[in-house]
């Protein structure tokens, strides 16, 4: 246990003495902020039009927040590989892997320490997004429901967890950061668009592939629907990534 904590603290120190974490936080704030701004502007335009034609009130959750959450998912897809690509590659290259592997700790403790450290950064990113959401909540009448916002937040957190866990594993496979970064990004992109197959193919195989898509499972969360199937999907991907990383560490260089 204490080793997980030790690695988590060390990682956080490293994140914030190097520009990496600041760059990711700043880029994320800018990109998510831009999405938020453009969707808000679009929403305002739409609702003014709606008012003119005497239509009912537009649904803030469906029209503004859901697309925003999806775009946050896309932004994480681009930015989180930059966080995970260095996690192992740097230890292998800098020789510190010898310290971690010869210390009296289990491999899984090392993996979990790194994962939770990155997860902390993810939490910070998502809290920034929820600052935007709070603004919407304040001005929207009726207020969007807390429960559905919470479910969406949980969904994004789990999605980010999947990114981090798989990224960590890919980073453990290579000593080159850029190779780790590019393969991670490619894998995320594939998982993200996998549900497109159902657009032109309705066979069983296509549905299996679509089931693997990260997007399919995010949809329920974003709509405020908590489904065990989605939970199981995300959690099992997270556990698989962590387990594989620990196994990978046990093998020779």
């Amino acid at each position, binding site marked *: 246990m*204490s*080793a997980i*904590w*030790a*690695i988590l*603290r*060390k990682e956080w*120190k*490293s994140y914030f*003495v*190097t520009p990496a974490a600041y760059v990711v936080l700043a880029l994320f704030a800018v990109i998510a902020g831009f999405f938020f701004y453009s969707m808000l502007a679009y929403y305002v335009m739409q609702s003014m039009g709606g008012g003119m034609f005497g239509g009912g009130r537009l649904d803030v959750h469906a029209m503004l927040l859901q697309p925003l959450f999806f775009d946050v998912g896309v932004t994480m897809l681009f930015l989180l590989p930059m966080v995970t690509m260095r996690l192992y590659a740097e230890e292998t290259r*800098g*020789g*510190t*892997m*010898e*310290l*971690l*592997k*010869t*210390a*009296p*700790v*289990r491999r899984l403790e090392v993996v979990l320490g790194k994962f939770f450290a990155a997860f902390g950064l993810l939490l910070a990113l998502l809290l920034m997004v929820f600052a935007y959401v709070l603004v919407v909540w304040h001005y929207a009448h009726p207020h969007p429901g807390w429960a559905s916002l919470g479910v969406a937040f949980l969904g994004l957190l789990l999605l980010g967890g999947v990114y981090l866990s798989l990224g960590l594993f890919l980073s453990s496979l290579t000593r080159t950061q850029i190779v780790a970064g590019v393969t991670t990004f490619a894998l995320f992109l594939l998982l993200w668009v996998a549900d497109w197959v159902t657009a032109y193919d309705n066979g069983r195989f296509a549905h299996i592939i679509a089931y693997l898509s990260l997007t399919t499972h995010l949809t329920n969360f974003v709509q405020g629907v908590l489904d065990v199937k989605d939970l199981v999907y995300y959690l099992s991907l997270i556990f698989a990534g962590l387990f594989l990383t620990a196994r990978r560490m046990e093998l*020779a*260089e």
Partner: protein
Amino acid sequence: MLEVQNLSKSYGPKLAVDNLSFSARKGEILGFLGPNGAGKTTTMRMITGYLPPSHGQVVVEGIALRESPIEVKRRIGYLPELPPLYPELSVRDYLLFVARLKKIPSAQRQPAVDRALERAALGEQRQRIIGRLSKGYRQRVGIAQAILNEPPLLILDEPTAGLDPRQILETRNLVRSLAGEHTIILSTHILAEAATTCERVIIINQGRLVAVDTPENLTHRVKPTDTLQVEVSAPAEAAAAALRALPDLTAVEVLGQHQGASRLQVEARTLAAREAIARALVGAGWGLRELRPVELTLEQIFLSLTGAAAGAPNVPVAAAPGEPQSEGEV
């Protein structure tokens, strides 16, 4: 204390370590000597649990590494060839991290870090960022990291490689000061280093054990005769003639003359010959200024041992550049 039993490691088809067995006694400094590529780093990585062996096993204080890796790792402090440092951390933060990693209880962490800083003479550098330290200081941070939890066994992989002569001497003194409390295994490809720092030396070449002994015994093993240098206040030819008359000397060679004194080198079959030499020269009415045994350098021992074992082409003959010349002799 440490038992290495039939350890082997192959990288694909290449056998880097071949059926290596040796042991280390409590409190000794054991030198691990061999040319580059001999398999020193690979062996140390297997002892520390970084690499799984292909065959054989490692036992530390009666505990097998394979059965209880965590228990064994707790007993080992390891300085890899490349010190495992995080350049962005300060010396103090780094050592506190290692202390947590090594599961030192929180109350003892700060004292342990302070003690390691003091032992490695790093007190002044504690707040500095590791990436900005000189190579010598970084090496010391690596050593401080290894001794942090007072492990009974210290494994140091070429601790003086790449340092300047002054740092080399400092590091050797540091290593010697750590002996006694710790059993130390130190690898080097510099023969003089093993001779000056270690009590026993293991020589390996191409992954195989060549010899295990004290530096002095290795000398005797390779060369049973006694080589002596004599300085005497007499004409060189006269002195040489007097020495050639003695029964136990196999060779007499004039090295030179200087200000009325001559220097000669002789090979003696027995230790008693030393007394005969002194008696003969003093009896002839000359002044005997010096009678000194010349020991083989480890370079010569090494060449002789590994040459016989494998005909190694790349054995280092000279000490590394920057090595103080006076240390070339045993």
